[in-house]
């Protein structure tokens, strides 16, 4: 039993779950910008949806380095234990959702990554399935619309960095901030090409 746990890197898995819960609880707003093929330049991949890769990769890694021959003739029900070992992290995350915002979605993603990886593993090799599952979250965000697609200042980008001075500013920002709220329309037409600019008065 101890060997079984060691091969499956159980301590590292516990550490990974702590990291997932910690990320979901502490930085719920953090988003990784992912280049998008549909429409806008980038979409935001919430960081808390990315970290579940960590426990999933560890589970797969542990499963892949197990020695199948001796385990198949073991006295203990290794297959059932493995199944429990794989569902346990999802159950833990579901329980943690009691105090973690959006925790159900994090648990859902963990289950999703794990399930896809296991199907891929059955279809191909363990090594290939681990490599492919890594790209799944990025591919999904990149092909889909994106959570942060409508944020001001470009999706997923730090809006603090936007230039405020008149030179090179997006033409609307300087004028629109100005206008009475009832009349807030862009004075400059077509933000992408036109812009105002004059030299020193």
């Amino acid at each position, binding site marked *: 039993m101890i060997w079984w746990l060691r091969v499956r890197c159980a301590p590292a898995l516990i550490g990974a779950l702590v990291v997932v819960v910690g990320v979901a609880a502490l930085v719920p707003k953090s988003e990784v*910008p992912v280049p998008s093929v549909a429409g806008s330049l980038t979409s935001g991949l919430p960081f808390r949806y990315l970290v579940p890769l960590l426990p999933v990769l560890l589970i797969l890694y542990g499963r*892949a380095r197990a020695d199948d021959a001796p385990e198949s003739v073991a006295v203990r029900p290794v297959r059932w234990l493995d199944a429990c070992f794989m569902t346990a992290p999802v159950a833990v995350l579901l329980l943690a959702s009691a105090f973690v915002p959006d925790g159900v979605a994090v648990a859902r993603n963990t289950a999703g990554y794990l399930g896809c990886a296991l199907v891929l593993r059955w279809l191909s090799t363990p090594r290939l399935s681990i490599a492919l599952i890594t790209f799944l979250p990025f591919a999904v965000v990149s092909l889909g619309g994106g959570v942060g697609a409508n944020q001001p200042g470009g999706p997923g980008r730090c809006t603090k960095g936007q230039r405020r001075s008149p030179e090179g500013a997006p033409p609307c920002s300087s004028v629109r901030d100005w206008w*009475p709220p009832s009349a807030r329309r862009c004075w400059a037409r077509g933000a992408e090409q*036109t*812009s105002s600019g004059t030299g020193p008065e």
Partner: protein
Amino acid sequence: MWFYARQPDALVSAPERYWEAATAHIAVVGIVPLTLCAATGAWEAVRIRRSGLVDRGAAARSPLVVALSQLRTVWGAGLLCVLVALACVAERAMGGPGGPDLRVLALLGLLVTTYTLAGYAVGWLLPWMLTVPVVAVAAFLWLSYPVSMEPLWLRQLNGTNLNEGWAYERTLDARALIAPGLVAAGLLLAALIVMVARAHVVRLTAMLPVTVAIAVAVPMVMPLEYDPTKARDTSTLSCAGAPIRVCLWPEQSQDTEKFRPWVENAAVRLKEAGVKLPKTYTPTFSDPTRADVVMSLVSGILPDPVPVCSERHAWPGEEAYAPVAMWLELTAGGNAEDVADRIDDGGKMMSLVQDVRKLPATDQTQWYSNNRSTLTRCDLKPQLTTTTYKGGTR
């Protein structure tokens, strides 16, 4: 990779016919190809490790030669992606003076080499099952995440953030190219050390070039913050014309025949109406329409920052902004329908401005100067209604 190399919206902020800006924009497209290069490099390393050929027996070829034979396809694919991206931006920059910015292309070439080799080197260090995921996620996060992180200058270190802040009056700051180049070179050196060295103690020295590169690069980019560009040398501006001097960048030289007469026409009308004009007009766009020219000229005449006093006091002049802007645009010869479209209040403001335009010229001038002065201070009330002016100051 090809797919990402031609993102349609990647180029929206690049001014047209400006090669330097267009080339700088392909850096951001590099995120996905570079990640894939690193991941494939790691995959190749795992492949040769698992073959068991390297650790047993006597090596006929040095580790570097072996790596080169394995990685040249990956490297070639990465460089191909850079060229595809360049071909995609070329249609926006075509026709402008000069050609692709070779410094940016050199930086991207260095990045492709570095990430391929770094992925390969890490492939020798980590447990072989986990190598590809770890390398892919780490490379992606490093290339993509810093743009949404503080401190702002962090994004200048990875070399995929040259696409911000572009306009005709901006040019690449050399520091924004040298710093990521240094970091990449440090990483490349570290990868080479890991590949050549066998002993773990020697491999630890790989930390050294990376540390040194970061230590040199960070103070370099700290003053840059989010913006990799700097003000352009104004000696390339060609200015001419009266009453406003129209200053154009070389990239806009094709539009000289449009800008100069339109600006001159509008400026003469405004001057006759008694409007104080700025000395120069430097448009930040090309392929102008007449409406664009009038509009940008007008917004140059209006004061730009909100008056400081408005943070503490009420600012009655705010309601004068739109009518004054509309009056200026109509006086400069703007199309009445376009101007009316800018505000949806059922045409009330437009009819007010039309009434003002029916006043005698001197009253209009008075109306303008009264209301214009309320835009920059808080102690004056705008007098927008025409009844105040009829027969008043004749």
